[in-house]
């Protein structure tokens, strides 16, 4: 089960620009992800997260170091094979919708990979039901909400039956409702299929749902660990321009105000639970 699915080995990448003083967007980053994990990649604006996503699927190649996916080193030869087993969802729901209707869009990757028609119909249907969008299959993109478009994008990735799903700020342009829908979809998918997920996000609340968090700071890996361990850094994360989850900030503020809470809480539910207990004790 615990096979490595993706790894970076001392990866450095600098964008090629006129500007000679350009610092590397990603600098000497090393990490490894196992099959079935849910990883959150967080960091401030410009910390190199999207660049890492592009290195993961061969839109960019490292200047130094090695990117390995599914056991193969990323190169011109392995590129298309790797891509066909990896799904990717981007930030802007509108700018990744290629098809004229929902089902056309879901089929796009299948068409590109030459999947026969009968199989395509079946896979499109399954993928749409996985994200609960089967009732919308004939809808045009401009009649869908942002959250629905992102779910279609996820279905488009799932149709290829990928081993790995990368979400690059897939929820950041959505309203709270749409964000919930997308996160719920990911959670359900992981339960039913054990898909490996890398979600890139600004939102530590979302990152708290992952099993492991990798924090990027100015192109370098800052820390890596479970959400609880990472959030323990508290003020350091805030200094890096990240917002701690609401429940954690609330816990800190309550503690400062003299409410003797026992634990660090990452979710609102847990905080509320303890507050109830506290209240009944008092």
């Amino acid at each position, binding site marked *: 089960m615990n096979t490595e699915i993706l790894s970076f080995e001392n990866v450095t990448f600098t964008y090629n620009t006129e500007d000679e003083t350009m610092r590397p967007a990603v600098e000497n980053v090393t990490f490894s992800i196992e099959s079935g994990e849910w990883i959150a990649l967080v960091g401030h604006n410009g910390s190199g997260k999207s660049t890492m996503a592009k290195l993961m*699927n061969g*839109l960019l190649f490292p200047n130094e170091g090695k990117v390995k996916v599914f056991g193969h080193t990323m190169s011109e030869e392995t590129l*298309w094979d790797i*891509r*066909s087993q990896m799904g*990717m969802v*981007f930030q*802007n729901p*509108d*700018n*990744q*919708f*290629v*098809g*004229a*209707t929902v*089902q*056309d869009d879901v*089929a*796009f*990757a*299948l*068409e*590109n*990979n*030459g*999947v*026969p*028609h009968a199989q*395509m*119909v079946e896979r*499109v249907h399954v993928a749409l039901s996985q994200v609960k969008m089967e009732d919308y299959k004939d809808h*045009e*993109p*401009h009649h869908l909400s942002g959250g629905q478009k992102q779910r279609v994008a996820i279905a*488009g*990735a799932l149709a*290829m039956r990928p081993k790995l799903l990368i979400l690059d700020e897939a929820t950041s342009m959505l309203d709270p409702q749409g964000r919930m829908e997308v996160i719920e979809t990911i959670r359900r998918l992981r339960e039913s299929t054990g898909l490996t997920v890398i979600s890139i996000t600004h939102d530590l609340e979302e990152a708290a749902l992952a099993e492991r968090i990798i924090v990027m700071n100015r192109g370098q890996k800052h820390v890596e660990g479970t959400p609880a361990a990472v959030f323990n850094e508290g003020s350091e994360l805030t200094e890096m321009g990240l917002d701690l989850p609401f429940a954690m900030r609330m816990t800190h503020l309550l503690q400062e105000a003299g409410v003797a809470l026992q634990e660090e809480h990452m979710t609102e539910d847990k905080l509320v639970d303890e507050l109830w207990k506290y209240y009944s004790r008092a």
Partner: protein
Amino acid sequence: MMEKMIFGRFIPGDSVVHRMDPRAKILFVFLFIAIVFVANNAWGYAILLGFTLLVVFLSKIRLYFLINGLKPVFILLIFTFFLHLFFTREGDLLFSFGFIEIYEEGLRQGIFISIRFLVLVFMTSVLTLTTSPISITDGIEVLLGPFKKIKLPVHELALMMSISLRFIPTLMDETGKILKAQMARGSDIGSGPMKERVKAVVPLLIPLFVSAFKRAEDLATAMEVRGYRGGEGRTRYRQLNWQLADTLSLVLLAGLTAVLWYFRA
């Protein structure tokens, strides 16, 4: 005005014509355009008009709706009619009033040209009204297939067309948003002399272009990530389905040609 304009619009529906294969419809319209020129007398034009009305009837598009939606086209039609009426000077003089002289041949030509124009506009409108733009694109792609041999980038052209169609509503929305944003900053596009209005459009177009380029870049990335490598080795999700009705429509057209030829002077 723009809402009522139906030229190039698609109205979903359920009729024999709606259900036809887009390839058949496109072929039909193109052949029809050629066949129209066979008619050269009153009989011929009457038959053409009758045939067109039959097709409109089969498509279940209300005639009133069609005529109402094509109003701007009718202005052009009337203009052409009068042009022929006044400037053809052949045949018997029918009517003269001051410098206006109307000849028999002028009246004939005017009527014939108007009918020709009318049936062409009706037929193409029936095509676009009953066929979704994406089906038309599919149809064109398959019909142009043979031209791949002479290196015509058929697949790329079709993809370009379908992506443009897909982004029209998105860009319209965006234009609306930018317009409001600029209005909120005090720009006034709706009024003032022409020169001012043209100037006011510039701050509308620039953000629109910038965002369109950004979208294009994002879209290209998304397509590449999803394995897009050009038309080679691709399969098609939307299948075209040629049925009996499609063959019959072309047979009908052959029949029309024969009848027109028979009545030709």
